[in-house]
């Protein structure tokens, strides 16, 4: 009997990892078990479109076990804790599973209750989030009822998954209200804890330019301290206020709860502080983390999980063979930013290189940092690719883990 790999979480990262490993190893060499607490896999990028009636909620959900290749064991259970010394995972309802290699892929958890007032009066009525399916559906109804007033899109604090999604929401809201013919009755504000529309200077400049052109006010360095749903006010820790009739809030994120109950596994926020290049937990060579669960200064995005996956599978192989790890993840992220009116712009970056203009993946390809209809089509095509190519663990031809340099134009900020 071969080694036993246990993968915690069967979302984007866990499913891809299990399938990639299954393709690479025979069942006699490697037993693979995936654990998740529920059976509904939600295509999260689709949540952006639900509030605007551009995606149907039920169409975003598929069975988790059906996304796993034959020969991968699926175990539905809530994880209670991991004992790193005993190499054992304990389940909430009782029972346990032992591992030779552990992959933590339990993603990020929304923590709305950690912000004062956020889940108080108004929550689900005039204060909503589109970061989970019920929230996105609630927001769809709230937008349909909305006849004018102040709308604020607010990111409570970093890190959040898909840091461009809130910006996309603001762009699409501008488009949505124009289409309904009430844009002149809506004041749109984008509030962020960052000192610009995005972290990296070249992209921040381009994206804040877009906000300005679309008449969306930008409020920076706004860390959400309190939500007053009744009074319609967001209050930052430095006591600035943003008034609203409808607040779209991206709540604080943390890692899965069980990580906090597992000594030595997580950091202060419940993320797993693995090595940024090997994805291996220092001092625990048999433990890896991938996707949103990893405490890295990379974006929390499905694309990042995909690029990490290539490195992870190679590293696990080398670890099992007793060889030193050589896989080096560079922080590569690649995001389509939907900008409304059937256009999108593509950004591509890594730990060291900020999003730059040019083309992707080479000198001939999709334009970077520039709105185009082609990028919008790319964003829409991504859903098909997700279910049929990324989750099954296939590589995308011509697009590897390492960020491509060819095609990028280096500009001073």
């Amino acid at each position: 009997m071969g080694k036993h790999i246990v993968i915690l979480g069967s979302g984007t990262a866990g499913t891809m990892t299990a399938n990639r490993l299954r393709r690479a190893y025979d069942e006699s060499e490697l037993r693979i078990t995936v654990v998740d607490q529920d059976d509904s896999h939600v295509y999260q990028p689709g949540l952006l479109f639900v509030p605007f009636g551009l995606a149907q909620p039920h169409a975003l959900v598929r069975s988790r076990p059906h996304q796993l290749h034959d020969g991968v064991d699926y175990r539905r259970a809530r994880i209670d804790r991991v004992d790193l010394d005993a190499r054992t995972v304990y389940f909430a309802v009782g029972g346990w599973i032992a591992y030779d290699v552990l992959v933590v892929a339990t993603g990020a958890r929304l923590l709305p209750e950690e912000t004062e007032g956020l889940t108080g009066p108004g929550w689900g009525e005039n204060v909503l989030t589109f970061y989970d399916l019920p929230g996105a559906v609630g927001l769809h109804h709230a937008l349909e009822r909305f006849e004018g007033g102040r709308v604020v899109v607010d990111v409570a604090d970093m890190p959040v998954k898909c840091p461009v999604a809130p910006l996309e929401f603001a762009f699409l809201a501008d488009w949505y209200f124009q289409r309904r013919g009430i844009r002149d009755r809506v004041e749109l504000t984008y509030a962020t804890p960052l000192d610009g529309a995005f972290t990296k200077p070249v992209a921040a400049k381009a994206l804040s330019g877009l906000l300005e052109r679309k008449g969306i006010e930008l409020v920076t360095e706004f860390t959400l301290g309190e939500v007053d749903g009744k009074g319609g006010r967001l209050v930052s820790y430095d006591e600035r206020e943003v008034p609203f009739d409808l607040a779209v809030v991206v709540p604080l994120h943390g890692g899965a709860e069980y990580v906090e109950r597992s000594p030595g596994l997580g950091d202060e926020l419940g993320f797993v502080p693995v090595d940024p290049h090997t994805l291996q937990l220092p001092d625990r060579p048999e433990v890896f983390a991938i996707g949103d669960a990893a405490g890295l200064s990379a974006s929390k995005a499905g694309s990042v999980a995909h690029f990490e996956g290539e490195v992870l599978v190679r590293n696990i192989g080398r670890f099992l063979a007793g060889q030193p790890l050589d896989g080096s993840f560079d922080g590569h992220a690649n995001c389509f930013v939907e900008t409304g009116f059937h256009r999108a712009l593509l950004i591509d970056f890594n730990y060291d290189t900020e999003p730059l203009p040019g083309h992707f993946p080479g000198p001939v390809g999709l334009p970077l940092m520039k709105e185009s209809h082609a990028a919008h089509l790319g964003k829409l095509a991504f859903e098909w690719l997700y279910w049929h190519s990324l989750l099954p663990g296939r590589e995308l031809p011509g697009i590897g883990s390492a960020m491509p340099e060819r095609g990028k134009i280096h500009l001073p900020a």
Partner: protein
Amino acid sequence: MPTATYDGTLVPVDDEGFFTEPERWTEPMGEQIAKELGIDTLTDRHWTVIRFMREQYAAKGTGPTVRVLGKTSGVSVKELYQLFPKGPAKTAAKIAGIPKPRGCI
């Protein structure tokens, strides 16, 4: 590389004025930086945060974010903003003589 003079000593800093060589920092330098940032007196509570920033930097290679500070330094986020009104993580990092905390993207 830009430089700054604190407590009569020339030290290298980055474009935004953060120390690039934290080992060159001294407490009197911290006091002078604080004054320049509008904090006239550094209380014990300020020093709790400043020392914590330096320890975290030494251990992890980056200063903590406000949220992590609020969870681990023993000073709540609310109080952090009272102590360092213009963004605690960045202000405290500057006073503590460590590089700008790496944000998340």
